[in-house]
């Protein structure tokens, strides 16, 4: 492969990273503040995609507007879910099995509702933008939809950064992330912050889901591969910073895209170069996950384990 082709793949990987970052942000925020691994995130992604579909089919709204409208809709939805289900979970500084299973149960309910409302067809959203691309020279082509999604994801991250740093809500979120007990002492209203955080996380999930709906076809059990990848990104990039999510997304996307193109040496009747077969591609995120967890257990763990023991 020539250098230009590598560049093309690199650009594709970066665009993919944008997609991954968008979908992981929602989960990161909820995890960081509430220490809840939100397995229902996949369900929210799915609902976001269907929301965009409905906006597109009923009101002929371009899916990007559908995505923007999804934000307030899902913010409200998230707060309702929190008020009815999530707030009963006790606070803890490590994720509990109860939260995992509760959200898993909720995901099953969301899937079933999806089947009931929309049936099991594979749906997709086609706009004039979907199939066109920006071509630079012979070998480089950048699909326009991916650019739009990347831009949307970038804006999303900037907004989150602003919220974190400039608003009171953002500061309470950061306080909770660092140390929930100390946050309470300095006057952060835990209940309210949790509710707003969950709403925000759900809003991001709905937004990301709508964006994903522009790229891929979806049905009510959409979201599982993205869920697993979000885990990996959270672990890679750390939890509490937006740049962490971006970093994790980039590392994952680049590794996945290039895994089948970089030859690696292997001894088999003499030294040879082998290429990873594409059917092994899904192992990459998980192999990466395990390796990172093993090599940096203290490094990333120090961000995680808030073993605050009341003296």
């Amino acid at each position, binding site marked *: 492969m020539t250098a230009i082709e590598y560049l093309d793949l690199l650009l594709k990987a970066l665009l993919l990273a944008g997609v991954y970052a968008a979908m992981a942000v929602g989960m990161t925020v909820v995890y960081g503040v509430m220490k809840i*691994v939100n397995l229902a995130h996949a369900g929210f992604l799915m609902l976001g995609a269907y929301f965009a579909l409905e906006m597109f089919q009923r009101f002929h709204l371009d899916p990007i507007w559908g995505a923007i409208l999804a934000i307030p809709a899902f913010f409200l939805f998230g707060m309702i879910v929190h008020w009815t*289900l999530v707030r*009963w979970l*006790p606070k*803890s500084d*490590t*994720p*509990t*099995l*109860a939260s*995992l*299973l*509760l959200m*898993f*149960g*909720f*995901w*099953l*309910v969301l*899937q*079933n*509702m999806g*089947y*009931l409302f929309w049936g099991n067809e594979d749906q997709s959203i086609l706009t004039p933008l979907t199939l066109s691309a920006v071509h630079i020279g012979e070998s480089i082509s950048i699909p326009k939809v991916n650019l739009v999604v990347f831009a949307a994801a970038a804006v999303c991250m900037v907004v989150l950064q602003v919220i974190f740093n400039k608003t009171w809500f953002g500061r309470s979120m950061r306080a909770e992330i660092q140390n929930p007990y100390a946050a309470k002492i300095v006057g952060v209203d835990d209940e309210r912050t949790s509710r707003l955080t969950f709403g925000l996380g759900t809003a991001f999930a709905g937004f990301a889901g709508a964006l994903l709906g522009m790229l891929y076809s979806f049905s009510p059990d959409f979201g*599982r591969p993205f869920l*697993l990848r979000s*885990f*990996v990104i959270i*672990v890679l990039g750390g939890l509490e910073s937006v740049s962490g999510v971006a970093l994790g997304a980039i590392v994952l996307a680049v590794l996945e895209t290039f895994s089948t193109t970089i030859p690696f040496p292997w001894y088999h009747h003499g030294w040879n170069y082998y290429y990873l*077969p594409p*059917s*092994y591609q*899904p*192992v990459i*995120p*998980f*192999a990466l*996950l*395990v390796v990172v*967890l*093993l090599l940096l*257990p203290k490094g*990333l*763990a120090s961000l*995680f*384990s808030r073993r605050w023991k009341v003296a």
Partner: protein
Amino acid sequence: MSVPANVRRWLKLILPLLLLLALLFLPKTDPGDNVIRMLFLTAVWTTTSLAWNLLGGMAGQVSFGFAVFFGLGAYTTALLMHAGHSPYFGFIGGAAIAALASFLIGLPTFRLRGPYFVIATIGVTEAVRVIMNNLDITGGSSGYRIQEDGPFRPLEHYYTAIAAVTLAVIVSTVIASSKFGLALRAIKQDEDAAAAVGVNPYVSKLWVHAIAAALTGLAGGIYARRAAFFYPGDVFAFQTGILILLMPVIGGIGTVWGPVLGGLVFGMVEEQISVKFPNLHLMIYGSLLILIILLEPDGLLGLLRRLFRRRTRENPGSTDADKVLWGRSSA
């Protein structure tokens, strides 16, 4: 209804034996193939529930990765049978390979704490699934078909499964009442404190993981033999891993009979739900899970205890659920 302590202890011994006798003599009453089939499935899933409970309920280490052991048990049994060995040798081989795998997985991952361990176990399952999908020796993504000569003997499978679940119950009871079990409970409550009083958490976790894996591998082999077909997307799936842990949680985590109840409910009831309510079974399943988590973390066993012994939430029957589910010591 208050029962004196010595009568209660005698009951605890005799009731399980009566249940076992009932199960052993059930085929004589000619209940039909379907009942035998459902009891077989119940027994297999109860074995995995009890196995998971050893690591998750007693030692407090939540693993989403037990599907790996189930699948390895299935494949090992299938391959050994293909090589001409008896299925029982295959089952033992499956258990052994699963235990070996548990060491390979546990050695690195037990150094991780809390959520990292959980996520790592999910990662391992997925990686194994994709690798098995690509290996040609085991049939790759098309799966493996076990050919057995001779007619189908449902009772043979049934009795093998009953034997497996009996073994699992015995192992669980022995561990629960032994010093090893005490060490595990100490690790669950507070790993550092346990280490301070002389327990080696790392080694203990590895051993209980191996026992749990062996039982799960056994169950996987027994299941595979009867189903006669399985493929990586089924035995190594993320959903299988979740299923294996859902049953002890629904049944009652930490106790010996909780997982049995969970396996029973799952084996008998789940199919009924998906048959009677085909469009709603996901919702029913999910709602049930939500309700149990929120209202009765001690699972069905806790519910039963509450109904028959008037225990209230303020006087909890077991502190195990609190620790494993909620991550705290009960007040």
